[in-house]
């Protein structure tokens, strides 16, 4: 087989080959095809590459394991030679702006000069965005090319509340970043994009005052005439100066005139008040709160999806209040009809208590006649043993009260003659108690049988009366089941479950001028971005976008305008690892406001790393160490490898990972959950070293628990490091691969390449790696 049949990857194994770097410089409306030589790439069709490239340096890839930066920038040095219609390449910058243009660098490996390929097999090794040219001379100039995300650092489509868009926006919200929401997020603070003027009373007013003075500090001017609202009362006015309403008509719009206190809010009454939930359509809007109090009426929620948009606020998720969002400042009581109390082992400190039940239901009977007479409340009627059966049985049930101290059962009973007879009571089919031989009674008598606490231990709800077998065939009568007395408590220990039902009406009384306040903070529970009808991001049409790989893909494609074809295969691979455990829920600008930092931070929070690799975006889940993709031997090493250890200062052995961000709070209190773990061995070896991590995109305890265990593994110990210089076969490593080394020591280590630095001039590759934590 001729060498020309080898693939580009296979050619890396050769000890010789020629390589050429081919540069596609995508200027606005013009693509230049350049190289460090004039080269005709013939692969069926022909593309000419022209010699304008002096040098490319810094062709490195930073694969740092945790919180790694994106790829380095590379520096291209161009010949400032004539090109097209200009005498110097730099002059093209006037026609086709270099800055922010895209450069793609391909590598082609040749086994013979003038090789003609059957297809286009050149390999994309770098894709980046140009900065401004510099170092410009007649001979040359340089251009730094940065990775796409570095160049797009400030390209996240974050917008602030702007009166140019929302003229009536609340001044308190103007300038705040509008929400971009992913996943399920509770209490998303809304922005008041259509709000009226607001002020406060400077003095108390009576219920008939027609001139009302306010502080004049409103940031939106009150109109000359209109309607205001103070507490629950609406008031029309015919004049407004800087701080005074005149010509007031109290109790407007069917409200009631009342006195108001100084400091009460004075708000302009509008036909609608609009609160923006997110600057984009969302999947769903759930509970709405005003100052933390859930609202059930008075507003309409619009997701912003097609068919669910508010006119004038299309493509936005908004809440429309037709009246001011007001809450009553009072204790919020939500009566619950049924209260279930689950008791565990407990110790009662009260005296004994008893419960008497005389309404035991007769469940069944056998061997007796007229059993219903036993529970008919008539002491004169009776049930009687038929004398033919082995025993006469009455079976009762009663409410189960759990473990009791004792149970006492009383019955009215007689035997018809003097023969000895035993009346027994069986508790829960296990414990039997007899009346003792009665020797007969001419008249009925009350018999009491008492079970002890031990005997009652198995009591559930079932007991029976029975007459033991008497060969004489005499008739025994039970006139009445009187009651059961259950004794419990009194310092004994017991356990059980009981249901308690509470009923009644809660009535709130009292009133004050401060009871009614105008809501300041409107929040809502949101399901954020949803997939499109084709399931572009999740595979499921209209699904909530919350799995990490789906979220990052959506940010890259929908927010940053990258092509879906530039999303690497590792996204899908990592997605299977995220499964259902890992899902995000966050407001975007609360995680990061720069694109590259956002993507890195999100990757970090799903135990992954995000990078650009060979022109594509990759998201690599850091699970267990993959098998080494390449084992280097002494034949491969161009220099002696150098080993080391990660810095001891980075060791952490007690990790607290805060999660479930509460956007109503700030600072250290802004999280509702924490997952923690520690490593006793590391603490013993290194002393306790604590790390407090904020998982600002995580709202799930199970996810945080998994994450914190992973993070502890990364930082609880020092790990070995390696620096090795290899020839071009080092390029066989791919993002997410590990390599191993056949050496005098450290042979079994799986090395995670953290930096691959390519010297394209000499085709040497410097590998910096760290032991894969395990």
């Amino acid at each position, binding site marked *: 087989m001729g060498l020309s049949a080898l693939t580009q990857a296979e050619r890396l194994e050769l000890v*010789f080959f020629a*390589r050429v770097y081919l540069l596609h410089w995508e200027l606005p409306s013009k693509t230049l095809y350049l190289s460090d*030589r004039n*080269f005709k790439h013939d692969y069926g069709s022909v593309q000419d590459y022209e010699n304008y490239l002096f040098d490319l340096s810094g062709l490195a890839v930073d694969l740092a394991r945790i919180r790694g930066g994106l790829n380095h920038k590379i520096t291209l040095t161009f010949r400032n030679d004539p090109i097209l219609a200009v005498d110097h390449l730099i002059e093209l910058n006037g026609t086709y702006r270099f800055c922010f243009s895209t450069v793609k660098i391909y590598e082609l490996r040749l086994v013979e000069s003038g090789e003609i390929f059957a297809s286009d097999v050149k390999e994309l090794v770098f894709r980046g965005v140009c900065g401004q040219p510099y170092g410009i001379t007649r001979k040359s100039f340089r251009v730094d090319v940065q990775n796409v995300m570095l160049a797009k650092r400030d390209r996240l489509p974050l917008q602030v509340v702007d009166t140019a868009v929302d003229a009536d926006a609340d001044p308190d919200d103007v300038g705040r970043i509008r929400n971009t929401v992913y996943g399920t997020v509770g209490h998303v603070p809304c922005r008041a994009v259509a709000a009226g003027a607001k002020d406060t009373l400077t003095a108390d007013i009576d219920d008939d005052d027609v001139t009302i003075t306010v502080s004049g500090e409103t940031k939106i001017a009150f109109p000359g005439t209109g309607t205001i609202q103070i507490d629950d009362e609406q008031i029309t006015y015919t004049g407004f100066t800087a701080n005074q309403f005149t010509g007031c008509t109290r109790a407007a719009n069917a409200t009631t005139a009342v006195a108001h206190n100084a400091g009460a809010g004075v708000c302009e009454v509008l036909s609608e008040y609009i609160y923006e939930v997110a600057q984009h359509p969302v999947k769903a809007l759930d509970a709405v709160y005003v100052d933390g109090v859930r609202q059930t009426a008075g507003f309409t929620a619009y997701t912003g999806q097609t068919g669910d948009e508010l006119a004038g606020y299309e493509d936005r998720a908004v809440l429309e209040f037709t009246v001011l969002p007001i809450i009553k400042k009072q204790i919020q009581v939500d009566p619950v009809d049924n209260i279930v109390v689950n008791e565990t082992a407990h110790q009662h400190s009260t005296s004994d208590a008893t419960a008497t039940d005389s309404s035991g239901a007769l469940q069944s009977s056998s061997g007796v006649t007229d059993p219903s007479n036993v529970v008919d409340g008539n002491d004169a009627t009776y049930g009687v043993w038929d004398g033919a059966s082995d025993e006469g049985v009455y079976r009762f049930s009663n409410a189960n009260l759990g473990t009791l101290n004792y149970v006492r059962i009383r019955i009215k009973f007689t035997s018809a003659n003097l023969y000895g007879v035993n009346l027994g009571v069986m508790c829960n089919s296990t414990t039997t108690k007899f009346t003792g031989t009665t020797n007969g009674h001419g008249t009925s008598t009350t018999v009491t049988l008492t079970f002890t606490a031990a005997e009652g231990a198995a009591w559930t709800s079932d007991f029976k009366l029975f007459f033991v077998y008497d060969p004489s065939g005499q008739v025994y009568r039970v006139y009445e089941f009187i009651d059961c007395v259950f004794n419990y408590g009194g310092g004994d220990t017991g356990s059980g479950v009981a249901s308690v039902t509470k009923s009644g009406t809660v009535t709130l009384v009292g009133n004050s001028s401060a009871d009614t306040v105008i809501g300041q903070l409107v929040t809502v529970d949101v399901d954020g971005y949803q997939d499109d009808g084709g399931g572009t991001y999740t595979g499921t049409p209209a699904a909530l976008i919350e799995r990490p790989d789906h979220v990052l893909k959506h940010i890259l494609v929908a927010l940053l305008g990258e092509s879906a074809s530039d999303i690497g295969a590792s996204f899908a691979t990592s997605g299977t690892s995220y499964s259902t455990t890992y899902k995000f829920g966050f407001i975007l600008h609360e995680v990061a406001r720069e694109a590259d930092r956002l993507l890195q931070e999100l990757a970090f929070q799903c135990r992954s790393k995000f990078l650009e690799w060979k022109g594509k975006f990759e998201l690599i889940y850091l699970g267990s160490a993959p098998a080494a993709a390449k084992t280097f031997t002494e*034949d491969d*090493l*161009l220099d*002696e490898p150098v080993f080391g250890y990660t810095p001891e200062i980075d060791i952490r052995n007690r990790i607290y990972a805060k999660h479930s961000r509460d956007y109503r709070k700030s600072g250290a209190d802004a999280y509702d959950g924490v997952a923690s773990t520690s490593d006793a061995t590391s603490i013993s070896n290194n002393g306790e070293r604590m790390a407090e991590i904020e998982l600002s995109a995580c709202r799930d305890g199970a996810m945080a628990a998994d994450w914190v265990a992973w993070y502890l593994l990364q930082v609880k110990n020092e790990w070995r490091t390696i620096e090795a210089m290899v020839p071009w076969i080092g390029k066989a490593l791919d993002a997410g691969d590990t390599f191993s080394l056949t050496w005098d020591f450290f042979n079994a280590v799986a090395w995670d390449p953290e930096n691959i630095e390519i010297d394209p001039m000499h085709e040497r590759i410097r590998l910096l790696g760290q032991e894969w934590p395990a």
Partner: protein
Amino acid sequence: MGGISLLYKNILEAGTVTATNENSDYPKWRLHDRDIGKLFKGTGTADHTIHVDCGAAVEVDTLIIPAGHNLTGGAQLDWEHSPDDAAWTDMATAWAGAAGLISKEAGASQDKQYWRLVLTSLAAIPEIPELFIGLKLDLADVIAWGYQDGPQGNVERVEALSGRPHFLQQGEDREFRSYQIKIQDSTTRDTIAAFLAESRHKPFYLKDLDGTWRFMSLVDPNIGPFGRPSLNRYDLQIDMLEVLP
């Protein structure tokens, strides 16, 4: 010892060049930029004429088009000159293009102001890396000795710790030539001086001992000097390295 020839001046560089068809991405100045890898391209397969107005009569005897062109498949080349830009005379009989370097040496030089190359019967949109037209300098009698060295590689060799070598070919092999020239009179001295003055910073064409034209450059551009013109008797060694596309 046989002779060599040098073609180091291109009338296109000093003249005014026009082309009837020109792809603006591959403009006509590439016909004379001494970069044999950058192509001039025409548009379409209709006849193309590359026209040069030298401003005054210039003596010419040689035309070279280096490899990399596509004037094949029946394409006809017609090299003509004119004293007045009206009446044109063939410099050589029109001929069919073939792959590789095209050279045409006229039997006798012509001293004309206007020159043109007419391309007809084109099979493809014409691509020409360079059009070199000028008067060659023959050095048949002044070569003391010389040799055609073998090709020189441009290969980097690195060795692993074990001694296993790896080879990285940075470019194609390049021919190397070394000739010693006897200078025994002022005419030769001035001729060589003119060549060196032009070629210290530009590649040029060398017609080798075997008659092959190669695109070469001086290995040492600081060759010379000619500090003792009164004697005019000394030898000069010229080392040349092939220039690749």
